[in-house]
């Protein structure tokens, strides 16, 4: 089992082939499709990495798709965004929350070929909040926008922005944290889950948690105006004494509006601890490389990466660059060694199969609600976007000893396969719109789809990081593409017939049926679960 050979954090200079590019894509975007692989085909590692770690622009915001079902009484018209609108009522807020989640899935689905969306998911898991708990759709939009703005930037201002984020202020009781009744909830998680962690090297005390809570008093998110403000009156203006762990730092109390800047002093103190860099690099490691961190990985990879992170003053982008350029990352032991998360599984399937989606102009309701079907596939398999199960994020990213194996049990595994079945058999319908997968178009992107061996080889290479047995490929060729015939030519002939008469249903239907069965079979293999 100890088959990791290279632990080095130094830049990778080995073979740069499809296998490496696929690994990079699988781990940084949602699935590596044939198109992705083609786009990277003639690019060097450095070029690929530069593309991957380039931030995408902030997307246009989610809109009112629900008008035809629930009237928006705050004046937001169909197709217009609600993000600056008044709260309205519970029913409208509920629709807006759905709007945001569906929209979020669309961001992943139609992502650029960059790490942006996976990084947003990473940070959502890291700075976890639960939309079902804090409730406000507007907060949820601001929250994920905070993440988008900072995801490639500097960790310290990022943590500050999250600390003052309305969703977080509500979720971890920051808005109730006052000098009269300090609430330690956020102050604890800030250290325990967001920056320093627990365990060795994390010897902050209960008094430190309390002192930090006092520093953070007065920051407030108003539910009525849906805005953030600092209430100087609620701020604790006394000095805050920290423990030996923080070198007995004293954060001087400030009064009036000046009180809001004590948070900067607090973050300066926290970021003076090297442990922040280690804790964060481990977090990246478990999300993007592998869940187990042995002593050798700790010493030879985590430690140098943490140093690099510190040396770059906690700039995230250089860390990502070093991370995905490292020798360790490209060790073949990691190829296909991770179980995809439900969102990864769902979105990569969408990116492979490219089901059509009506545009906002054509049918705004169907555009959102069809995306909602995909969101729900992930939700029912334990990853509900916007709602990790707790402030610790999804257990699969941190829970020993199973980690990502937690995603798969007899219920979720079956549902994953069921979702592919529903998609493949065109059973997604919303508002008169039916999603029809064009499997012929899918097959057409390969080099020689008329050759059943080549077609299966290339599809398998695209879908899986691991190779599947030749005997299995030959069996499914005969069973599925050839309907039991022993001569490959019958498939070739069908494909040639199709090329000369592409609209003849006598040809396209038998082809579609076989291609669907083939994809259904391949996407139900355990190999398809792995990235």
């Amino acid at each position, binding site marked *: 089992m100890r088959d990791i050979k290279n632990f080095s954090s130094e830049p990778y200079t080995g073979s740069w082939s499809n296998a490496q590019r696929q690994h990079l894509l699988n781990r940084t975007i949602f699935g590596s499709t044939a198109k992705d692989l083609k786009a990277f085909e003639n690019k060097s590692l450095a070029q690929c990495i530069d593309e991957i770690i380039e931030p995408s622009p902030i997307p246009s915001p989610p809109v009112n798709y629900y008008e035809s079902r629930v009237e928006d009484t705050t004046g937001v018209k169909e197709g217009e965004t609600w993000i600056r609108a008044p709260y309205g009522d519970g029913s409208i807020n509920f629709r807006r929350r759905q709007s945001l989640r569906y929209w979020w899935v669309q961001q992943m689905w139609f992502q650029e070929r960059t790490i942006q969306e996976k990084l947003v998911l990473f940070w959502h898991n890291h700075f976890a909040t639960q939309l079902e708990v804090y409730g406000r759709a507007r907060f949820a939009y601001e929250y994920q926008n905070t993440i988008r703005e900072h995801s490639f930037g500097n960790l310290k201002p990022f943590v500050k922005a999250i600390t003052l984020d309305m969703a977080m202020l509500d979720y971890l009781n920051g808005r109730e944290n006052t000098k009269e009744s300090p609430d330690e909830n956020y102050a604890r998680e800030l250290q325990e889950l967001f920056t320093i962690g627990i365990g060795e090297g994390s010897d902050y005390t209960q008094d430190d948690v309390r002192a930090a809570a006092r520093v953070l008093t007065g920051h407030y998110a108003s539910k009525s105006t849906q805005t953030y403000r600092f209430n100087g009156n609620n701020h604790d203006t006394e000095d805050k004494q920290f423990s030996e762990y923080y070198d007995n730092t004293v954060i001087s109390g400030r009064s009036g509006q000046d009180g809001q800047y004590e948070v900067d002093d607090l973050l300066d103190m926290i970021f003076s601890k090297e442990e922040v860099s280690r804790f964060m690099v481990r977090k990246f490691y478990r999300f993007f490389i592998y869940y187990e961190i042995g002593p050798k990985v700790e010493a030879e990879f985590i430690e140098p990466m943490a140093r690099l992170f510190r040396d770059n003053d906690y700039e995230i982008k250089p860390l990502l660059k070093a991370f995905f350029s490292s020798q360790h990352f490209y060790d073949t*032991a990691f190829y296909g060694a991770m179980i995809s998360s439900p969102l990864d599984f769902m979105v990569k399937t969408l990116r492979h199969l490219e089901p059509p989606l009506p545009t906002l102009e054509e049918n705004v309701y169907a555009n959102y609600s069809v995306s909602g079907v995909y969101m729900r596939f992930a939700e029912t398999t334990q990853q509900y976007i916007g709602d990790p199960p707790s402030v610790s994020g999804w257990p699969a990213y941190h829970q020993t000893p199973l980690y990502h194996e937690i995603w798969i049990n007899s219920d979720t595994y*079956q549902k994953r*396969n*069921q979702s592919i079945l529903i998609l493949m058999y065109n059973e997604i319908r919303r508002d008169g719109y039916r999603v029809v997968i064009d499997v012929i178009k899918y097959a057409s992107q390969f080099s020689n789809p008329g050759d059943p061996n080549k077609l299966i080889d290339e599809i398998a290479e695209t879908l899986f990081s691991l190779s599947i047995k030749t005997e299995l490929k030959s069996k499914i060729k005969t*069973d*599925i593409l050839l309907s039991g015939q*022993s001569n490959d030519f019958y498939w070739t002939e069908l494909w040639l017939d199709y090329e000369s008469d592409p609209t003849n249903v006598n040809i396209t239907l038998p082809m579609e049926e076989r291609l669907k069965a083939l994809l259904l079979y391949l996407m139900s293999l*355990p190999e398809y679960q*792995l990235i």
Partner: protein
Amino acid sequence: MERRKFLKHVVAGGAAPYFLSGLPLSAFGAINEAALGDDKVLVVIQMAGGNDGLNTVVPIDQYAKYSTNRGNIALKENALLSIPQSDKIGLHPSLAPLGELFEEGKANIIQDVGYPDPNFSHFRSTDIWNTASDSDKQVLSGWAGRYLANNNPDFPNSYPNEQHPDPLSIQIGSVLNTSLQGPVYPMGMAISDPDFFYELLTEEQGETPTTLAEKELAYLRQVAKQTNQYADSIKKAASSVGGQLTYDDESLSQQLKVVARLIAGGLKTKFYFVRIGGFDTHDNQAETGDTSKGEHGDLLAELSNAVLSFTRDLEQLGAQDRVLTMTYSEFGRRIKANGSNGTDHGAAAPMFLFGEFVNSKVFGENPILPSVAGDNESVPMQFDFRSVYASILERWFCVETPQISEVMLQSFQSLPLVQGAPCGFITANEIAEEKELPFKAFPNPVLDFIKLEYLSDGGVNLIQIFNTQGQVIAKPVYAQKPKGWHTDIYDASRFPAGSYFIRWQNNAEQKILKVIKM
């Protein structure tokens, strides 16, 4: 209500059930309770590639024509296997093991099964047979799948359940046969191969993982086994079966061995589909010298050995009364052999049924062979394959007529392929001996007009005219006709000169005549 349920209800109710369809119940003879239970099974053997019907069931009444047309793949007359059901046919010698079943009355033959306007593409024709569509129509669901969906409208929601603990159908193979595709979902479970089945039983682990990825694969496979909703019921069924007979090592035998075990283990699965491939015998079909050898002979031997072992195994397991087995292939082959010791894609071909309750005879007559067949000449259909399916639904699964039409998408001729007992029918030939069928077409040869005379027994009468490629080129009669003789005159003057087949059908009877157009 299904006829069977009605019957069962009546019997169990102890009322005085004298009449069913106007016949006294006693006329049905002994009703086999086991066969009446809800556990009847159809096993379907797909012979993929297009089985050469003329070298499977040889029309020995026209041996000389057969031999001329078949050239160096013609089977020797004295090598053919004769069966008690007919002295007009001889079976391929490789079918010898099936001879036993014919002797015991556990097998039948349906001659020249096909469909109008045959398609010669494997894919298309396979789809036509599986979906039971017309040749020019596209249907996406399968005939058995529609039947299962009809009875299980909520599937797959909350399946398996108490009432349906087992897979509705099982395919041995990577993917379900299209026959089992319901209007929306596949209506069954595929067991990729017998090895997988035994792995499921023994919970055998694959190879020990040596890499990080293999560790996850092993984990996923383990969960996949648990995930298989039917794993428990399959394991339970399989483990309740004691010793099985020895089968040979060929693939079909091994597939049927699994099927026998599951049936005997009491699974309530209705359909099992298995497959034997390789019937696309464009060349090397028969060896020069000994024509009974060669690829076709090998395949038929594999088929017949498998079916015999399967039958004997079911008998010793006590499950024989529950099982009907059917063979089919997407088409037959041309009448004339090609130049490579083989045959090219054709049209109609015989089907076999096996089981305790088959009506053990040869249905239909021998195809009418030309002295010298044209290159494209095929055996025309005598029976529509969909009337075989419909008759099985009716006489084996005891499905009522309206549902049959719904499942089969239209009405088809009902054939007494299965004995009456399972569904409480009286089959025509169980009452009376066959008589010469009353259909005449003359003059022959035809110049322009053709006179069609037929004796209707009431109900729909259908007359179709086929060309030698099996295409329906005219339908002179398709109407309800009262009992008695009827005469129609048809103007065939537009037909090009050549051979034609005229098929008349009325209820369970049909007759094909060959006429020459001058």
